[in-house]
């Protein structure tokens, strides 16, 4: 009797579960209401929500929707006015006078005042609290606010790249009244405002009703969902739990037929590089030999299924006028030439070396495998070492304890900031240990050059030097492939990582 009761309970429980599941499947279709809300999958949490502390490119993908600087970076790498409506530069190239836009409101409803702008720069330079948050403004002599609509920055030396440090990437304007809460409850002026951040789960943003550009944004709500695993992300897309996700090129086939796919150039520079302080990579002939031996096409096909643009220097065609075309063909594959160069350098039988790659993305070890095969043909034996991202940063990027490695360098809106990694005195970023006097001189001169056409010539020459000297093997700018279950319009492609949601809308 007692046993019978137990069985009855069990059957009842099963029945309940079935009922519940049946009900929920009926209630599952709410597409009509969802139209103004988008869920975007992102690989990882932001490092900081405070725009002055945020550094990792993954953070900017999201938080640039909340913040604006005096200027806004555009899709072609140029700048457009944002909080500054216009500006004037003095003859000597030292004094910038900005005219502040009138109707800009913070997410808390307050109007942006010149005091907030002063506060922003004081905070970045550490002039008030003593701890600077950025080294971008070391060249600033003084800041002033002569009246309520005007803001003035004086430089110590002319710098043709200075305006690029006035975007939300480096100096987002934030309200003085929010002091101490910029990371927990960030307030900016961007098209979306902060709602909630759940570490490890998601970041919710909502429409900023008082946005100065009244047409924008279209969406009411944006949720960035953090999911590091591509497999789970694709499944979440299929189950309609996310609306938009990046897809690795080698998995494109799984979603190609059922979803909308868009391709986005991302201005990244994928390099296979070497420690130029070490033998044998000190010798330019060895570096050139490796360049001739590596087949970019093999890597593009094997790792990116063809969705990448080959490059020949540290610049992607995404940079428009600044990009020097033709360099991608200089080191067309030539095994004979590579062997000759190696022999000239004193390595007729090749040598053994090691390529150290990070494990945080399969891409790097896949590339390394192609490199091993390519270099074997000219007698270079390459061993692959896979290390954790934290160790890669510590030992390879900052410690410079490596022979060869591969990494994708993230794009930035300014050509100067892309190329300055190779300046011999740039200790923090020049992990290649590249050294070239002509290159250093061009990069110093270009900051003093006011004429844009001349700047372009100089940046192009700098790219040629990197190519001639074989500072790295420049492989490709790979495309980011986006899969969405609905027709989405207004997804813009920037020369840096930014999921601009301001003009995104569903077209169904």
């Amino acid at each position, binding site marked *: 009797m*007692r*046993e019978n009761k137990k069985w009855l309970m*069990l059957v009842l429980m099963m029945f309940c*579960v079935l009922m*519940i*599941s049946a*009900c*929920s*499947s009926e209630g*599952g279709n709410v597409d009509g209401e969802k139209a103004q809300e988008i869920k975007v999958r992102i690989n990882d*949490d932001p*490092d*900081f929500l405070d725009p002055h*502390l945020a*550094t*990792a*490119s993954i953070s900017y993908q999201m938080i640039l929707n909340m913040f604006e600087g005096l200027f806004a970076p555009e899709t072609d790498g140029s700048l457009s006015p944002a909080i500054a409506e216009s500006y004037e530069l003095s003859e000597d190239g030292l004094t910038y006078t900005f005219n502040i836009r009138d109707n800009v409101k913070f997410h808390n409803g307050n109007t942006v005042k010149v005091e907030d702008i002063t506060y922003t720069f004081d905070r970045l330079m*550490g002039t008030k609290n003593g*701890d*600077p*948050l*950025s*080294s*971008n403004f070391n060249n600033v002599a003084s800041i002033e606010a002569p009246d309520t609509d005007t803001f003035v920055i004086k430089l110590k030396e002319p710098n043709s790249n200075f305006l690029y440090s006035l975007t939300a990437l480096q100096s987002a304007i934030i309200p003085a009244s929010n002091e101490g809460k910029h*990371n*927990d409850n960030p307030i900016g002026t961007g098209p979306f405002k902060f709602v909630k951040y*759940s*570490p*490890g*789960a*998601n970041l919710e943003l909502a429409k900023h009703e008082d946005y100065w550009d009244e047409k924008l944004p279209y969406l009411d709500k944006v949720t960035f*969902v953090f*999911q590091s*695993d591509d*497999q*789970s*992300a694709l*499944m*979440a897309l*299929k*189950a309609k*739990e996310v609306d938009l996700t990046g897809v690795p090129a080698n998995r494109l086939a799984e979603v190609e037929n059922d979803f909308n796919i868009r391709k986005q150039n991302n201005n990244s520079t994928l390099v296979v590089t070497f420690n130029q302080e070490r033998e044998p990579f000190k010798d330019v002939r060895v570096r050139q030999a490796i360049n001739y031996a590596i087949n970019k096409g093999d890597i593009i096909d094997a790792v990116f299924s063809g969705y990448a643009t080959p490059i020949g220097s540290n610049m992607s065609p995404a940079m428009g006028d600044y990009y020097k075309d033709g360099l991608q063909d200089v080191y067309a594959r030539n095994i004979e030439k590579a062997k000759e160069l190696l022999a000239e350098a004193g390595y007729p039988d090749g040598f053994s070396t090691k390529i150290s790659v990070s494990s945080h993305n399969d891409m790097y070890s896949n590339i390394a495998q192609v490199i091993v095969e390519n270099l074997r043909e000219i007698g270079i034996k390459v061993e692959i070492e896979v290390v*954790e*991202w*934290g*160790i890669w*940063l*510590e*030992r390879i*990027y*900052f410690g410079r304890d490596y022979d060869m490695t591969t*990494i994708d*360098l*993230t794009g930035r809106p300014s050509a100067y900031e892309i190329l300055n990694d190779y300046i011999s005195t740039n200790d*923090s*970023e020049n992990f290649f240990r590249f050294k070239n006097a002509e290159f250093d001189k061009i990069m110093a001169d270009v900051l003093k050059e006011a004429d844009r056409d001349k700047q372009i010539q100089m940046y192009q020459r700098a790219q040629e030097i990197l190519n001639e000297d074989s500072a790295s093997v420049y492989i490709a700018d790979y495309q980011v492939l986006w899969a969405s279950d609905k027709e989405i319009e207004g997804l813009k492609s920037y020369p840096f990582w930014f999921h601009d949601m301001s003009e995104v809308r569903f077209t169904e």
Partner: protein
Amino acid sequence: MAYIIRRIILFVVTMATVSLITFSVFQVMPGDPIRIMLGTEADETQVETLKKQLGLDQPLHIQYMDWVKGLVTGDLGDSIRFSRPVTELLADRLPVTISLALITLIIVVIVAIPLGIFVAKRQNKLSDVVFSSVTQLGMAVPSFWLGMLLILYLGMNFSFFTISGYVPWTQSVVGALGALLLPALTIAIPQIAVKFRYVRNAILEQLRLDYVRTIRSKGITEKFVMYKHVLRNSMIPILTVFGLITAEVVAGTIIVEQVFSLPGIGQLLITSISYRDFPLVQGIVMYITFVVVFINFIVDILYSVLDPRIRLN
């Protein structure tokens, strides 16, 4: 009373040892939390300022002592990666992991015990052989793969299941069940495969004893023999095993939370290790140690409830 005091001392010693081991591992592990967080774009000025603000420019042993001081006052410090108090992060994640662990335990108990009894009654018959072979399979299946199969065949076909992410109970009970049932099954299946064998063996062992023959000879029904006497007496070894499950379930949640993108303690632990987030790792390790020690304590108490002959000393 003496028992309680001994338990507490043991608990403190365990916690201290575990935290010291975690600390030592961190000392030899390469990688800098700020560098990992900021990546290749790090601005040197900012790195220096942050290190100063977070006290990371201090030698490790001083950082450790500061952490111990905080612990005494109930403050686990701030996470480096998420710039939030560790206690707050843990509190956010606890409901997910606790729910997952409880559902898993319930599934294991309601399946493994009846199954064990069922198989024990049919010793050496066909069903016993079949179930024993299935056990081998259940034990051998890696949980991440099992999770993916469940996602593929159940998660994709029934909208009841959420295959990634979590829905809080307060928001929707159905949603929470939908999000937790598949991951719980993923952890439970290999556990059931192992645990029902324990139940079976414990019962078989009891069935061989003299008292069973005696009560049977009194003419009592087989059901009464099984549920009134045998089951109760086999509960001691079964309880020991189910106490151990808790540790395994906690370990299981670490992998399964990754597969199902559940924002629980396990996922937080993986993140905190890869980011070298020392305060957060310590906080989580302390929590897990506490749970395991606490469950063992409960199991000890239950022993004396089940068998009054066992005294707590």
